C-alpha cells in the first residue's frame, strides 16, 4: 500500500511557471468574459417591466430542483431525448463538481489553510465517478447527434410556418450551426478529457501510486493499455499530453466564456425559468393595472423581466410546436417561433448600452424579429404549448398580451370586432336579447328557481353556448332535468347572467372582460347559494381562476364532478347500463386548464361504457379549435380545421360508437366536423349529459318537449 497522500492526480507537473501563469491568465479572462456576458443578460432583464413572482423563493427553488433532478418535464412525450439529456446533464454536473473540488483544494483550501483532502480513497472514488460521468456525457451527446442527423424529427426543423422561403429569417440556419458547434465542442471536451487521462497513465506508468490504481479510472485505463499496445512510450505520452492538455484546457475555458452568449446559457436560464414558473400561467391571465395607459404588449420593453427570461430559456426542442393545434393544421403559428422571434428582438434591442428609440422597439409587424398579427390571431389559447414546455416557457400569456395591443389598435377580424361589440351591447355573443337567456327553461315541465330572488344550494351559471345555441339547449334542458330529478336545490341568474368573459379575455379585450366579470361578480354576490355549477368549461375556468382577482371568490364545480358525486351518493340512480364503445375528448378548459381529467372518465365507467382513449388524451388533448375567441373567427378555407383533424384521430378507433364531449363549444365544433370530415353515420358526437340521460328512467311528467 502506497502512502495515501501520494494517490492523487498530478496538477501542472513539469509545467514551466510561465505556462502556469499563462493558463491562469487565460482562465481569468474566460471568467471575465463570462461575467460580462452575465451582466449584459441581467441588464437586459432589468429593462423589462416588474413582475411579482418573487414570493416563496425557497419553495420555488425546491420545486425547480425536483424538476431538474427527476428530469420529469424532459422525459414527457420524448423519453429517449429526455434520458439522453439526463446523461449529459448529470455527467456535466458531476464533472463540474469534480473540477470545482480540485479548485477548492488546490487554489483555496491548500494555499490558504493547508487543508488537503483530494487524495487516497476519496481521490479514487472521485476518479471513478468522474469517469462514469464522462461516459454518460459522451453517450448522451452521441445520441443527440444521432437524433439531429438521422431521426429527421419535424420538431427539430427550424423552418418557419409564418415566413416565406427567401425571407432572411425563414430557415434559421444559424441555430442549426450553433446546435452542431455546441455538440461538437462539448463532445470534444469529453473525449480529450479521456485521452488526456490515458496519456497521463501511460506517461506515469512507472509510478505504482498511479499505475496500480488505474482501474479506478476505467476508461482512461482501457485507453492507456490500447495506447501501449500500439507502442506509445512514456516519453511519447508525455509529449502528446502537453498539446492535448492545452487543447482540452483552452476548449473548456472557451466553453465557459461562451455560456452567456450562446445556447449554453440555458443551463442558467432554463433553471431560473423553471423556478419562476407560474402554476396558473394562461389559466389566470395578468390584469392590466388601472393606471396603465395602453393595454398589452406593443414594444419589447412592455414585457416583464420574467417574460424576457422565459424567452432565453427556450431550448428550441419543438415540443410546443408539435402540440400546437394551429400549427398542426398549417396555420402560421409556431409557439416556438413566437418565443424565438421575441428573443432575437430582445437580444438585438436590449443588449446594447442604450435602449433604442421607442419606434424601434415595436414587436408587431413584418420585419425580422417582429410577430405577425396573423400569427397571434391563429392561437387558440389551448395551453398545449405551456403544458408541455420542459423549461416552463409561458407562451400564451405573452400572445394574449400582444393581442390586447392589437385589440386596442383595432387590428382584428371584422367578424370578431362585431362579436365583441355585440357582447358589449347584449351581454352575450349570440346578439340575443338578455330576456331570452333562460328561454330554454320555459319548455321544461317544472319551474327553475331564480337565484336572485330565493336562496338555493347550487347556483347554475349556464354560459352563452349552453343558453342560446339550439343544439346545446337540448343538453341544457337535460341537465336541468337531471338536477331536478336528483333533488338538487338549484337556481339560475336568468337575464342577469352575462357572458362569463373567459374567451373575451383570451381574445385580448381586457376592458370588456372587466366589465363582464365585475357585472357577473356583483350579480353572483347578491345571491344566497353554497356553490356554483356549470356545464361550460370556459365559464368554469374564468370564474374559478380569474374572478378571484376581481373580488369574486366562489366555490365552483364543473358538472362532471357534480354528476359523479350525485351518482355515487345514489341521488341519481342509473336504471340501465350502456354498452357503447366510446372515446372521450378532454376539453382544454376542463382538462389542461383545471386538471379535470378523471371525473368524466369515471362517469363513463359508471355508465358502463367501454372507454378507448385517443392517442392525444388528457394533458395532450387536441383543441377543437374554438378556444381563444377563435369560435368567432372563421377558419380559413382550404386548410384543415383542428376539429376535423381530431375526428380523423377518433375515426382510427376500431368500432367507435360515440365521441363523448363535455363542453358546449366542443359539441358544436365536433358535430360540424363529423359531417364535414366524412364520419357521419360511422359514429356520433354526444355530450356526456346525453349519455347519462339515457340511463335514467324519468317519470312521464318529467319528459322533455319533443320539438325543441
Amino acid at each position: 500500500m502506497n502512502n495515501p497522500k501520494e494517490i492523487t492526480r498530478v496538477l501542472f507537473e513539469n509545467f514551466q511557471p510561465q505556462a502556469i501563469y499563462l493558463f491562469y491568465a487565460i482562465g481569468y479572462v474566460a471568467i471575465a468574459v463570462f461575467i460580462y456576458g452575465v451582466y449584459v443578460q441581467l441588464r437586459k432583464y432589468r429593462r423589462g417591466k416588474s413582475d411579482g413572482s418573487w414570493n416563496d423563493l425557497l419553495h420555488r427553488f425546491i420545486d425547480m430542483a425536483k424538476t431538474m433532478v427527476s428530469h420529469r418535464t424532459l422525459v414527457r412525450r420524448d423519453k429517449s431525448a429526455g434520458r439522453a439529456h439526463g446523461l449529459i446533464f448529470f455527467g456535466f454536473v458531476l464533472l463540474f463538481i469534480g473540477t470545482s473540488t480540485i479548485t477548492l483544494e488546490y487554489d483555496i483550501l491548500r494555499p490558504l489553510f493547508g487543508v488537503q483532502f483530494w487524495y487516497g480513497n476519496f481521490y479514487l472514488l472521485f476518479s471513478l465517478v468522474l469517469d462514469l460521468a464522462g461516459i454518460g456525457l459522451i453517450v448522451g451527446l452521441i445520441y443527440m447527434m444521432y437524433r439531429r442527423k438521422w431521426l429527421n424529427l419535424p420538431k427539430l426543423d427550424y423552418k418557419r410556418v409564418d415566413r416565406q422561403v427567401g425571407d432572411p429569417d425563414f430557415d434559421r440556419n444559424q441555430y442549426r450551426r450553433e446546435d452542431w458547434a455546441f455538440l461538437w465542442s462539448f463532445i470534444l471536451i469529453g473525449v480529450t478529457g479521456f485521452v488526456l487521462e490515458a496519456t497521463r497513465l501511460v506517461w506515469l506508468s512507472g509510478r505504482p501510486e498511479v499505475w496500480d490504481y488505474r482501474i479506478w479510472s476505467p476508461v482512461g485505463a482501457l485507453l492507456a493499455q490500447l495506447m501501449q499496445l500500439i507502442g506509445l512510450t512514456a516519453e511519447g505520452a508525455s509529449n502528446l499530453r502537453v498539446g492535448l492538455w492545452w487543447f482540452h484546457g483552452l476548449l473548456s475555458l472557451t466553453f465557459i466564456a461562451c455560456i452567456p452568449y450562446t445556447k449554453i446559457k440555458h443551463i442558467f436560464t432554463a433553471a431560473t425559468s423553471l423556478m419562476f414558473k407560474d402554476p396558473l400561467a394562461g389559466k389566470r391571465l395578468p390584469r392590466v393595472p388601472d393606471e396603465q395607459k395602453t393595454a398589452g404588449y406593443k414594444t419589447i420593453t412592455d414585457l416583464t423581466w420574467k417574460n424576457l427570461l422565459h424567452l432565453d430559456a427556450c431550448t428550441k426542442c419543438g415540443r410546443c410546436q408539435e402540440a400546437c393545434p394551429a400549427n398542426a393544421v398549417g396555420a402560421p403559428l409556431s409557439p416556438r417561433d413566437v418565443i424565438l422571434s421575441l428573443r432575437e428582438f430582445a437580444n438585438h434591442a436590449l443588449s446594447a448600452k442604450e435602449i433604442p428609440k421607442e419606434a424601434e422597439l415595436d414587436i408587431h409587424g413584418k420585419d425580422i424579429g417582429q410577430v405577425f398579427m396573423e400569427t397571434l390571431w391563429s392561437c387558440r389559447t389551448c395551453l398545449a404549448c405551456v403544458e408541455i414546455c420542459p423549461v416552463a416557457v409561458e407562451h400564451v400569456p405573452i400572445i394574449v398580451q400582444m393581442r390586447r395591443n392589437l385589440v386596442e389598435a383595432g387590428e382584428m377580424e371584422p367578424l370578431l370586432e362585431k362579436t365583441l361589440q355585440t357582447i358589449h351591447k347584449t351581454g352575450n355573443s349570440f346578439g340575443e336579447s338578455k330576456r331570452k337567456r333562460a328561454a330554454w327553461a320555459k319548455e321544461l315541465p317544472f319551474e327553475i328557481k331564480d337565484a336572485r330572488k330565493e336562496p338555493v344550494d347550487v347556483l347554475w351559471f349556464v354560459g352563452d353556448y349552453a343558453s342560446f345555441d339550439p343544439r346545446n339547449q337540448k343538453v341544457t334542458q337535460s341537465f336541468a332535468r337531471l338536477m331536478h330529478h336528483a333533488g338538487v336545490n338549484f337556481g339560475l341568474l336568468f337575464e342577469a347572467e352575462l357572458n362569463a368573459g373567459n374567451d373575451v379575455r383570451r381574445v385580448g379585450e381586457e376592458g370588456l372582460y372587466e366589465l363582464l366579470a365585475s357585472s357577473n361578480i356583483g350579480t353572483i354576490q347578491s345571491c344566497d347559494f353554497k356553490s356554483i355549477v356549470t356545464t361550460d368549461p370556459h365559464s368554469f375556468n374564468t370564474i374559478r381562476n380569474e374572478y378571484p382577482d376581481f373580488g369574486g371568490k366562489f366555490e365552483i364545480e364543473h358538472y362532471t364532478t357534480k354528476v359523479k358525486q350525485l351518482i355515487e351518493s345514489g341521488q341519481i340512480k342509473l336504471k340501465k347500463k350502456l354498452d357503447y364503445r366510446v372515446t372521450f375528448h378532454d376539453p382544454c378548459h376542463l382538462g389542461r386548464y383545471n386538471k379535470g381529467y378523471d371525473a368524466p372518465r369515471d362517469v363513463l365507467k359508471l355508465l358502463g361504457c367501454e372507454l378507448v382513449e385517443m392517442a392525444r388524451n388528457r394533458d395532450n388533448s387536441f383543441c377543437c379549435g374554438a378556444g381563444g375567441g377563435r369560435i368567432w373567427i372563421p377558419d380559413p378555407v382550404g386548410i384543415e380545421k383542428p376539429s376535423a383533424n381530431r375526428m380523423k384521430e377518433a375515426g382510427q378507433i376500431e368500432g367507435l360508437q360515440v365521441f363523448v364531449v363535455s363542453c358546449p363549444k366542443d359539441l358544436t365544433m365536433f358535430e360540424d366536423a363529423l359531417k364535414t370530415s366524412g364520419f357521419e353515420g360511422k359514429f356520433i358526437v354526444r355530450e356526456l349529459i346525453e349519455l347519462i340521460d339515457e340511463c335514467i328512467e324519468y317519470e312521464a311528467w318529467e319528459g322533455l318537449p319533443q320539438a325543441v
Partner: protein
Amino acid sequence: MKILIAVKQVAALDEDFEIRADEKDVDEDFLLYDLNEWDDFSLEEAMKIKESSDSEVEVVVVSIGPDRVDESLRKCLAKGADRAIRVWDDSIEGSDAIAIGKILAAVAKKEAPDLVFAGVQSSDHSYASTGISTAAYLNWPHAAVVADFKYQPGASQAVVRRELEGGMLQEVEINCPAVLTIQLGINKPRYASLRGIKQAAAKPIEELSLADVGLSTGDVGAGNSMSRVRRMYIPEKGRAEMIEGSLAEQAAKIIQIINEFKGA
C-alpha cells in the same frame, strides 16, 4: 381647423317589444341604445383628416339627447374625438328632424367649424333630413350621401363623390364651410376598445342648455316641429300559404281562394 360631427344615439328593438301606452313610440324598457351606425363612419372620416394633417385639426362631436347619450359620446371620445358636446332640455322631447337641425345649426354657429358631418340617416327613425336641415338653418352648402371625400385642411373647397342610383357616383366640388352627410362604407371605422371608452370617461362632455346655444323652449319640441308622430304600430302581416296536393287539387284550391276574395 375644426370639424363638427353630429351624432345620434339610436334605439334598437329588443325581442318581443311593446308599444307605449300613448301609442307614439316603443316602450323604453324594450330599447337598446347604441351610436348610430352611420356616425361611426363620419367620425372615422374626420379622424382620417385629423391624423393625416400636419396642422392642428379639432374634432368635436355633438349630440342632442338626455344623460344616456353620454355613453355614446364617450365611445366617440375613445376613438379620438377631442371634445364632446351634449345639448338637452326636457322640452326638446318630441322634436322632429327639422327642429333638431335647428339646434345643431345653433351649435355650429357657436363652434364655427370648417365642416359639419352627419350620418346620411339614423337607423331608428330614418328621416335622413337632420344633416340637411342643419345646412338649411346655417345657409351653408351641403352634399348628401357622400361616399368619398377629398379635402386639404384649410382649403376653401372640398371634392366629394355622392352615391346615386344604379351604382353611379357624382363628383361635386363644394365650398366650405359645408355640411356633408356621410354614407356607410366610406371607410373602415376603428374599434373602440372598452378600456379606451373607460379612459375617455376622464375627458369632459360639455353639457349645453337651449339658452347656451341661443334658443328657447319656443324653438323646439313637438309643438314647434313641422311634423308630429301620430301613432306607432305594427302593421298586420300579409298572409301566405303553401298550397299542396295534386295539380287538380291545387287548382281547385286557388279557385276557392279567388272566390273568397271576390266575396263570393
